[in-house]
Every structure is written in C-alpha cells, then in structure tokens.
C-alpha cells in the first residue's frame, strides 16, 4: 500500500511540475509530503510560484492564479490515472482571456482519454466543445433541454 502510494504520488508530482509552467507560461510548482517517512499519514502541500514572482503562500495568489493552480493539479491527477469521464462546473469562471485559451488547449488535449462535460458561461469554451447542450426554463421552474446554435448561447 505505502509503495503504491509513493509511486502514484511521484507520478502526480511529476505531472504537476510539468503542467504548471505550461499553463502559466513559466514559473514552477511542486507537491511536497509534509512527513515523507510516513506517507500514509502525511499531508500533501502545494507550492506554486507564478512566473517572475517571489515564492509566497497560496493565500497571496490572485483568484485566477488559484483557479489555474487547482486546474494544473486536476490535470496532473488525470494524467497519472485517466478517468473515463469528468464533470466540471464553471471552473473557467475566474480566468482572463489568455489563461482561458491555455486552459481550453489543455482540455482539448485531455479529451482523447477522458470524456468531459463542462458547464460554462464562457463563449470561448463553448466554441471549443464538440457538442453543446442548452438548458432552459421556458416554463418557469421546470428545466428542459433545447438545441443551441452557438450565436445565441451564453
């Protein structure tokens, strides 16, 4: 058990170290075991340093930087052990246009192994999807599906 955990931790850590600088176009990040001798009881700390900035605590990161860091970790976990499908609810809400583009590129590249269902209000994400499902409450209080043409969605 402990060995399996160590192997998986090393894989996720490796992917996280590689994905973070690609999402942030620079900088570095790491996962650290707080108690490496007892992996099954240890905590896992996240270290994140956006490009050009001093290393600081996660608290000082901006809203968008925190979301992008969490997304990097999510992709690292998916890379270590791909999941057949994954539902994401407005995880792109706080990203600016440049970070949104980079996130979308990642999503597309992971979509070969994992089927994604992403709930979003961002037009760029809608345009990058393979299929679009519109939900509406034409009858107030009752949800129904409608077909959506991109021009009217958002």
């Amino acid at each position: 058990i402990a060995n399996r955990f160590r192997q998986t931790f090393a894989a996720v850590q490796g992917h996280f170290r590689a994905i973070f600088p690609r999402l942030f176009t620079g900088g570095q990040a790491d996962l650290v075991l707080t108690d490496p001798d007892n992996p099954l009881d240890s905590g896992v700390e996240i270290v994140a340093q956006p490009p050009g900035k001093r290393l600081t605590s996660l608290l000082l990161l901006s809203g968008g930087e925190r979301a992008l860091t969490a997304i990097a970790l999510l992709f690292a976990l998916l890379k270590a052990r791909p999941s057949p499908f994954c539902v994401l609810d407005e995880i792109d809400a706080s990203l600016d246009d440049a970070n949104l583009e980079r996130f979308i590129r990642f999503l597309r590249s992971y979509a070969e192994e994992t089927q994604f269902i992403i709930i979003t209000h961002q037009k760029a994400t809608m345009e990058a999807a393979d299929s679009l499902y519109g939900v509406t409450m034409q009858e107030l209080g009752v949800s129904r599906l409608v077909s959506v043409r991109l021009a009217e969605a958002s």
Partner: protein
Amino acid sequence: MHLKKLEIQGFKSFADRTVLEFGSGVAAVVGPNGSGKSNIADAIRWVLGEQSPRQLRGQKMEDVIFAGSESRRAVGMAEVTLLLDNADGALPIEFSEVSITRRSYRDGENEYLLNNVQCRLRDITELFLDSRVGKDALTVIGQGKIDEILSVKGEERRDLIEEVA
C-alpha cells in the same frame, strides 16, 4: 468506458423526463442562471451513490425530488439513469452496455438498479471500485469547488492522491 446517455425525471428542477445523449470529447452545457445546469452535475453525483444532502446543495435527501413550481405540482419520486458504454470491459461485468439507475421516494426509500435489475448500493460502488469513477473521485467538480483542492488540509489532499493510487 464512456457516458452514452443520462436520463433524469423528477430530480430537482427536471420535472419532465429529460434525456442527454453524449458523444466522445468535450460536451458543453450552457444556459441562463438558475436554468438547471448544476442540477445535471448533481444528478450524476447522485446516481453514483452520493449520500450527503449537503453535497447536493440540499438540507435533506428529499430536496432532490421535484418540489413543484408555479405551474406544476410536486412529484413523489426522483429517478436518474446513467447508461455507460463498457465495450472496453473497464467495468468488471459481462455487458457491453451498463445502466445504473437510482430512484428515491418522499418516504426516504431508495432503489438502485443495475441493467434494470434491482440491486444494492454496494453492488454499484463495488462495480466502480477500480474504475476511478464514483462520488468521491474527481468525477464531478461542483460549482465554486475547484478552489477547495487548494484550501483543504494536507491530509485531505493526500486522500485525493490515494484514491488515484
């Protein structure tokens, strides 16, 4: 394994039977505020066995059953079915298609079905055990919850990695 179809009826704001058919790749769900998008994410988490009302933004499990609207009366049952393609044999069961269904009644009674045959919740959780799909894995990341990966304690993050192990 991938998602082929999701059928929702009487679950939260989906009073009428609603069917979503999925292909591969990225499916975007869009629509106005309050139209029922996050309720779809809740339906997937619920049919996979979620037992905590708070994870479904409710106070009691009964909150998932359509409570009525200005033009409709409340209903007595919520039902969600997930149809999965199992041609790759990822799920340890003989079928090339697997459907799981959950029903819940106002008296608190829950029914689970595997390929339309009644079973226990345990049968469903065991089926998904090695597949990395389930209510606890990263299968559903709720609205506003992406930040939690950063704010939980180190031990909880370890659990995330253990699940992946």
